[in-house]
């Protein structure tokens, strides 16, 4: 038995998957079933009572989804994971375990626009309050801590501008405040950044982006780092107190260092319901097998495109952390030395109208609201993803009127540069 730590690419192909016990199928089968038969009444009772490991109903767990969960947990270096229907569902399920009405979360101001909406409107309606802090000013997180603070939420590489967050500095604030740090690692993927190594307690992803990678399936996942002691005070009763849903079981006492992932499954997913389709899990698993290859190509292409744009006469600024002069370049070299990701923004001298024109003149780039596809994508955030924000909030979240966001695909970089060049000249 060789006990060595397999490399990232080996884990991306193998972790969680093994030939099917009944058929020997080598690819992970799609267990497209709602439910699973019990061996007998006692087995059923054991499963419902959380006494045995096994499958009951696909809203709570599914063998195809379980392979995806173990694979992402392995890639992130966590103890366990839970796959859900979307990145937004992951955020909902995580916070439901941590917050009661009147509680607060501190969130980085630089977030995906949809997350800003979710926190500001939907979560507000649950009585979960958000205090915004500036990831470029660590003290703003410290100042935002109150006795009601239950978690801190940041993105490793922030949408839309591709800025790099100083995860370790914010992790230190979270530890001092005695709350978990949640990192949305969607834009980096574990190939570029492993937030748990830098102090994250929970990692979430929109699997819809680079992990699935082909723009064909929505999905989300929650990874438990196994690092947070939920029972050290009574701040997290979902994990530390006897749960009436399960005849008085205490989740952390019973499940130890993967208790958070279990709470998300048996209290969150079970009752809120945003289950991932096994078919989507299969598509995303297939995507993950090539994550290291794709992600490197995404980054290399993005750097070439950013370099091209930075010298273009129609462009006033390029925000790409992989460029030597960028304000996030030092953080990129520390946290994401293999590359700065593939999502970044640039500003046009021609302002809002030039942004709208560019998008309509591109022939290879697709104008759509997604990132992390094999195909190159473009969007003008001010008129789309960030249009619900007021002007000041647009600027603060990196989506000013003259800003265009690109998500660079894995095509030939020469073709991408030629397409941008013709569209900027048109």
């Amino acid at each position: 038995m060789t006990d060595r730590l397999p490399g990232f690419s080996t884990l991306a192909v193998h972790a969680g998957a093994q030939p099917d016990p009944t058929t020997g199928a080598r690819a992970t089968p799609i267990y497209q079933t709602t439910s699973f038969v019990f061996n007998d009444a006692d087995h059923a009772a054991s499963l419902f009572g959380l006494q045995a490991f096994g499958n009951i109903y696909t809203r709570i767990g599914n063998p195809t989804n379980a392979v995806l969960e173990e694979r992402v947990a392995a890639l992130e270096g966590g103890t366990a994971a839970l796959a859900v229907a979307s990145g937004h569902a992951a955020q909902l399920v995580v916070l439901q375990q941590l917050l009661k009405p009147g509680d607060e979360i501190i969130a980085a101001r630089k977030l995906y626009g949809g997350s800003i909406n979710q926190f500001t409107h939907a979560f507000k309606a649950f009585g979960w309050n958000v205090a915004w802090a500036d990831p470029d000013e660590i003290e703003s997180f410290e100042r935002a801590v109150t006795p009601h603070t239950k978690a801190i939420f940041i993105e490793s590489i922030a949408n839309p501008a591709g800025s790099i967050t100083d995860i370790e500095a914010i992790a230190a604030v979270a530890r001092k405040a005695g709350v978990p740090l949640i990192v949305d690692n969607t834009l980096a993927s574990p190939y570029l950044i492993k937030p748990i190594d830098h102090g994250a307690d929970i990692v979430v992803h929109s699997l819809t982006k680079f992990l699935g990678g082909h723009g064909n399936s929505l999905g989300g996942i929650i990874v438990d780092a196994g690092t947070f002691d939920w029972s050290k005070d009574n701040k997290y009763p979902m994990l530390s107190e006897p749960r009436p849903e399960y005849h008085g079981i205490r989740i952390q006492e019973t499940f130890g260092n993967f208790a958070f992932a279990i709470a998300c499954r048996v209290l969150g997913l079970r009752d809120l319901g945003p289950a991932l389709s096994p078919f989507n899990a299969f598509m995303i698993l297939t995507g993950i097998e090539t994550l290291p290859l794709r992600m490197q190509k995404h980054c290399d292409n993005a750097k070439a495109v950013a370099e091209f744009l930075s010298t273009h006469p129609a462009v006033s600024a390029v925000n790409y952390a992989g460029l030597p002069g960028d304000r996030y370049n030092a953080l990129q070299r520390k946290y994401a030395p293999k590359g700065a990701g593939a999502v970044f923004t640039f500003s046009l001298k021609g302002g809002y109208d030039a942004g709208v024109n560019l998008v309509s003149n591109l022939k290879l780039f697709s104008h759509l609201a997604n990132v992390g596809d094999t195909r190159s994508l473009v969007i003008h955030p001010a008129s789309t993803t960030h249009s619900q924000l007021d002007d000041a909030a647009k600027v603060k979240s990196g989506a000013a009127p003259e800003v265009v966001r690109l998500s660079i695909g894995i095509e030939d970089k020469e073709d991408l540069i030629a397409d941008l060049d013709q569209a900027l000249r048109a």
Partner: protein
Amino acid sequence: MNHDAYDDNYIRSILNNVKSIAMVGASPVNVRPSYFAFKYLAQRGYDMIPVNPGHVGKELMGKPFVASLADIGRPIDMIDIFRNSSHILPVVEEALKLSPLPKVIWMQLGARDDAAAEKAEAAGLKVVMNRCPKIEYGRLSSEISWMGVNSRTLSSKRAPIPTQGMRLSLNRTSFGGGQTAASDRAAKNKTETP
């Protein structure tokens, strides 16, 4: 012995070799972790003995409770202690009076007593602290992967179909033989923050 991070081969050899397990602090209440672990290990084919003076006269999965280790009256391979850290030492001292000696002292998730561990190790016993044998068995056999848990093992072999009472293969390839960086960090954080 590094009790912060065990090599998977160490845990594996214990779970592969012990046949009988006395569980001190076993509870007949079916929502207690000890009940879960007792039932799971019994279903995996271990010869389980519930030890708890408060429940003598009752049974756990058909096995009568005994009041103390001395009352078992036959050789036992492993003592699984489901007690708080502060109650570990007397149990270990009692275990060290048994003849023949047990081979393994296992302290449950959350329980750790380094002085007691040293005594047991000095007498030639293997010790595991702050782990659950059910979780470790489920992890090393990858059965726990049904729950999305990172088993930290890989295998290209066809898996056995888990059935009642069957011993699953624990002989999968382990990543690096030990803990993830994260759980090491958790263990370290625990000792840093009182």
